[in-house]
């Protein structure tokens, strides 16, 4: 399969991952002159770097594979071997060790410059380089010497060496620990850190590192950076001047550069400035630069099957096959099957694109992609679409017809219409809160329901859609809060003047005693309100997303009566106070309502102040407990397990119940986690408003269920991204254990491992005996959804120590009154 390139090829494919390989295989099959350029010395580097024996999944299962190469779920080794064999057998023209440095020229005559070898000439280019990027290179004298490397595959292969690791992130620390793990290798390992601490790394890694240093297995050099690489030596810049140490090998782990800059340098335009934007593409994957095509993860499709299908498709398009329908056509056809009227997939897509305002600017390819992550509905007149207080993070758009919003919880006959082309349900998407109102169809209506992922992707790629959604969100929140007869026109001025601000955790938005007058709306995240009493900050209340604050100073002109600060990283909308005053002047009824609301809040303030002396210690205790809970992520939680250690006898029945209710694996670690004043926050899912785990899930397997639970469905591919992204360490990767003998056979005859999670050794032995291979998938708490009676951990607690709470219920003054009365 060695590369033989004579003259100009028809297509040059850069990157030999699933997308590039499949494209090259198609080109070979069609007899199209081609070359497949791969940076490393083997095919498909990303999968090559998976850990040994990893079970690779093949989702989505309803998508057919269209490729000349075979692919099915299985072990990493088997998949790579199949591809290697088929590529060799098909005589695909592969060029290994070809690092592309630049692509110049125009359609029909591109020049692909390669590092250290002859450039390649091609008529068209297909970029299938994924999103991994290239490691950041060290820029210092001697950086070209061979003992400097940017990757460490097997720490066990180096002996008797002086090795220096550069980089203070997790990758660097893990490499350093690996090299120093076995004293028998007799390596002298040094890790350099330009700063004074390892703030970017995980706490557990830093702890291991410090321990290794205390044991003398590792040398940590803080405030030190490399100055020059020499043969067998490394010159360091330290706080006290230059120093030279012995060094046989340097491992540099200073992060990697996303491929965007390189792609843009080729002349390709991205959809927006957002860091998560993808290149603009035509239906045939052509970029804004004619002749250059982008497929695979770089085009926004991270799953292997998608990538392989696109590789096939792009070559077919280049070969002039314009009638080729994408492989996802049947999936889309199925989505539209339930709608009235006989239209083709393309006609439906066009109808939705043209009728829904925020989708107007999308290309047919983007529309297709969006539709794959969305659902379409046909509602009869009067049909309820969702109900107030339902959980839901999807957003709806009206393609035909209109809906009515029941703005009053008491009287369903009070409604506000939303017309064709507009959206609804955006509050769930932006704030992660429950639905604010019941919505029903006013007439026969066609709607499109965008999943949270699809909607976020849309907002990242189409800036105009993001602006439109944000405006609607602010306007509706204002109307909902201040209600009483206001119309969109009344608040238009306020909406125009509104500014969205990012607030980092702990930052003060309003300072008690200050004279400023603006009003704020919590858009996402949450705030805590504190009042200074006798020199101590006393916790007053917790404000979830959707709340407003700062209006008292505006209404009665007083100074700020309490401090409001962000509990977690949040976004607030700021409205200028004077505009609000003007609005109040125009609307006397609104002023009355505002004054009435204010009286209630003032009572709470006075209550705290008056009771301060009578239960002094309790207020203090309550404030500190509230602060502890906020520090431990309760501020972004929707439902969290707490353990009262005054009652917990440590029987671990909660863990056993969890395991036996969920395929035999526990999703909770009772003992781990932080404790304050006997209130323990175990390692267990908090069901965050904006789940970190959802951020980067290739098959979009993480969803929010009807009771607010964040769960992982069975399309999980076991990549481990969610586990890495969860700041609370509540997701584990494990294989579903074999079935245990029943409870009675254990109690009477001692068969099996008994209640709760079976030991690792039992599971392993039993699984080997059964012979069926199980992939390690992500598992986490699903709040026992689908199990009658609710969360098993709480039901199985014999003493009442385990409780589940939502923050707004737990962090309210009512609790304080309850606890002290």
């Amino acid at each position, binding site marked *: 399969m060695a590369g033989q390139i004579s003259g100009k090829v028809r297509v040059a494919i850069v990157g030999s991952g699933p997308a590039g390989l499949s494209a090259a295989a198609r080109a070979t099959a069609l007899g199209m002159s081609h070359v497949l350029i791969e940076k490393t010395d083997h095919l498909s580097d990303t999968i090559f770097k998976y850990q040994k024996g990893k079970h690779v999944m093949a989702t989505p299962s309803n998508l057919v594979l269209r490729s000349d190469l075979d692919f099915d779920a299985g072990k990493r080794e088997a998949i790579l071997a199949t591809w290697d064999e088929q590529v060799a057998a098909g005589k695909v023209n592969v060029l290994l060790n070809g690092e592309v440095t630049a692509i110049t020229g125009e359609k029909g005559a591109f020049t692909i410059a390669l590092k250290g070898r002859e450039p390649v000439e091609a008529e068209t280019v297909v970029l299938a380089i994924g999103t991994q990027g290239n490691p950041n290179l060290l820029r210092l004298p001697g950086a070209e010497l061979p003992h400097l490397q940017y990757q460490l595959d097997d720490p066990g292969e180096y002996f008797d060496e002086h090795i220096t690791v550069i980089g203070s992130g997790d990758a660097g620390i893990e490499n350093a620990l690996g090299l120093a793990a076995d004293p028998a290798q007799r390596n002298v390992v040094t890790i350099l850190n330009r700063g004074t601490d390892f703030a970017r790394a995980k706490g557990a890694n830093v702890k291991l590192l410090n*321990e290794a240093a*205390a*044991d*003398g297995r590792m040398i940590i050099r803080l405030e030190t950076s490399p100055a020059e690489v020499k043969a067998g030596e490394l010159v360091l810049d330290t706080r006290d001047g230059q120093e030279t140490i012995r060094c046989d090998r340097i491992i540099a782990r200073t992060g990697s550069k996303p491929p965007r800059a390189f792609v843009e340098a080729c002349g390709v335009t991205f959809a927006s400035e957002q860091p998560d934007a993808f290149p603009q593409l035509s239906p045939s994957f052509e970029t804004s630069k004619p002749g250059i095509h982008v497929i695979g993860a770089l085009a926004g499709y991270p799953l292997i099957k998608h990538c392989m299908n696109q590789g096939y498709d792009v070559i077919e398009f280049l070969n002039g096959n314009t009638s080729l329908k994408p492989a996802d056509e049947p999936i889309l056809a199925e989505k539209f099957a339930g709608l009235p009227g006989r239209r083709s997939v393309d006609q439906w897509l066009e109808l939705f694109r043209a009728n829904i305002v925020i989708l107007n600017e999308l290309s047919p390819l983007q529309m297709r992609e969006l539709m794959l992550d969305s659902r379409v509905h046909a509602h009869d007149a009067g049909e309820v679409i969702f109900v*107030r*207080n339902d959980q839901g993070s999807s957003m709806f758009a009206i393609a035909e017809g209109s809906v009515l919003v029941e703005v009053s*919880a008491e009287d369903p006959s009070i409604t506000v219409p939303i017309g064709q082309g507009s959206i609804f349900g955006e509050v769930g998407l932006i704030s992660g809160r429950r639905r*604010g109102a019941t919505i029903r169809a006013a007439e026969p209506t066609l709607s499109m329901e965008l999943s949270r992922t699809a909607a976020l992707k849309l907002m990242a790629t189409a800036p105009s859609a993001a602006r439109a959604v944000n405006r609607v969100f602010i306007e509706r929140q204002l109307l909902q809060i201040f209600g009483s007869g206001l119309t969109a026109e009344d608040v238009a001025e306020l909406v125009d003047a509104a500014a969205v601000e990012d607030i980092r955790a702990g930052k003060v938005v309003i300072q008690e005693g200050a004279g400023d007058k603006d009003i704020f709306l919590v858009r996402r995240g949450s*705030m805590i*309100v504190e009042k200074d009493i006798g020199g101590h900050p006393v916790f007053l209340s917790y*404000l*979830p997303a*959707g*709340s*407003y*604050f*700062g*209006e*008292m100073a505006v209404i009665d002109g007083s100074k700020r009566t*309490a401090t409001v600060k962000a509990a977690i990283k949040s976004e607030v909308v700021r409205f200028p106070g004077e505009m609000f005053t003007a609005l109040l002047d125009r609307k006397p009824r609104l002023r009355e309502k505002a004054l009435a*609301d204010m009286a209630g*809040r003032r009572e709470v303030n006075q209550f705290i102040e008056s009771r301060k002396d009578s239960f002094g210690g309790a207020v203090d205790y309550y404030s500190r407990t509230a602060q502890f809970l906020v520090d431990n992520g309760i501020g972004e939680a929707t*439902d969290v397990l707490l353990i009262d250690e*005054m*009652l*917990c*006898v*440590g029987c671990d*029945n909660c863990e*056993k119940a969890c395991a036996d*209710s969920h395929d035999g694996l526990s999703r909770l*670690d009772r*003992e781990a*986690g932080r*404790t304050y004043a006997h209130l*323990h926050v175990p390692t267990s899912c908090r069901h965050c408003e904006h789940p970190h785990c959802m951020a980067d899930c290739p098959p979009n397997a993480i969803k929010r269920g009807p*009771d*607010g639970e964040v769960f992982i469905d069975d399309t999980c591919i076991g990549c481990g991204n969610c586990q890495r992204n969860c700041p609370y360490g509540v997701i584990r990767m494990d294989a579903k254990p074999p079935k245990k003998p029943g409870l009675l056979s254990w*109690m009477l005859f001692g068969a099996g491992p*008994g209640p709760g999670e079976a030991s690792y050794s039992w599971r392993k032995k039993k699984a080997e005996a059964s012979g069926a291979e199980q992939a390690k998938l992500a598992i986490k708490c699903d*709040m026992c959804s689908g199990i*009658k*009676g*609710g*969360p*098993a951990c*709480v*039901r*199985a*607690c*014999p*003493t*009442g*120590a385990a*409780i*589940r*709470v*939502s923050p*707004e*219920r737990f962090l309210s003054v009512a609790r304080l009154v309850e606890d002290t009365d």
Partner: protein
Amino acid sequence: MAAAPDIEFAGQSESDIRRGADHESFLTHKGMRWLKVSFGLSLVAILGYAFADVSPRPNGGTWYGYILGTIGALLIVWLSLLGVRKRAFTGGRWSLKAWTSAHVYLGLSLIVIATLHTGFQFGWNVHTLAYGLMILVILSGVYGIIAYAILPQELSNNRREMTQGQMIEALAAIDRQLEQAAQPLARGEADLIIAALGQDTFAPGVFARLTGRYRHCLTERSLAELTDRTGDETHERVVALLRKRDGQLEQIRRHLRLKALLEVWLYVHVPLTVALLAALAAHIVSVFYYW
């Protein structure tokens, strides 16, 4: 100062019910519902005993005795089923806390019901054996209630946010450092440290575990020997590490002791319950056989 949307504070929602957010212990569950039930049951039994016209005298063989005996036997069987309920994690609206609460209070009411059932007639026979076993089971249970009420907070205080695994890891980390630090010591001193490190921390047995007294702790002995020999850096470091090790051992031992005290009664309570069930069966069979 600020307001949350009204919807957040609407009445108790379906999800609150699912959560079981009521925060009260098994002893105070639902306003001590089962204490009241148990108290009422006992009162009725006592009143019945006082007013029932049985002849020749109250005992297990009268009609009233049979009623009490049936109630008692059913209670004993039901109470012993807690062991199954606790481990059968089925769906449904049950709460183990409610079961525990009922178990505790109804179990205590057995003292009244069973004693009245005997009619205060005791002897050296299988009937009184069953009664005696039942009283022992109840007494061990009373210890359990006391332990559950007092010990959890001590356990929590002692943990200082560490898990048992972390405590043992911390000890292992200190041991590695101690081993390194002790390298320059003289032979005799080094042997002390090696012996201390080599000692199985958890071997000394049930008595030490339950009392927390470890008389032959070599770490303490090494510390006593080496404390006065400070002066150079090596000795100071070794002594500091020994103190750290001693403190860590103390935490682990207290943790194990509290856990043992929370569990030890079950090793009496459960086997005695099995014995009680057997004696109860013998009691019932013999009563009907010799009727």
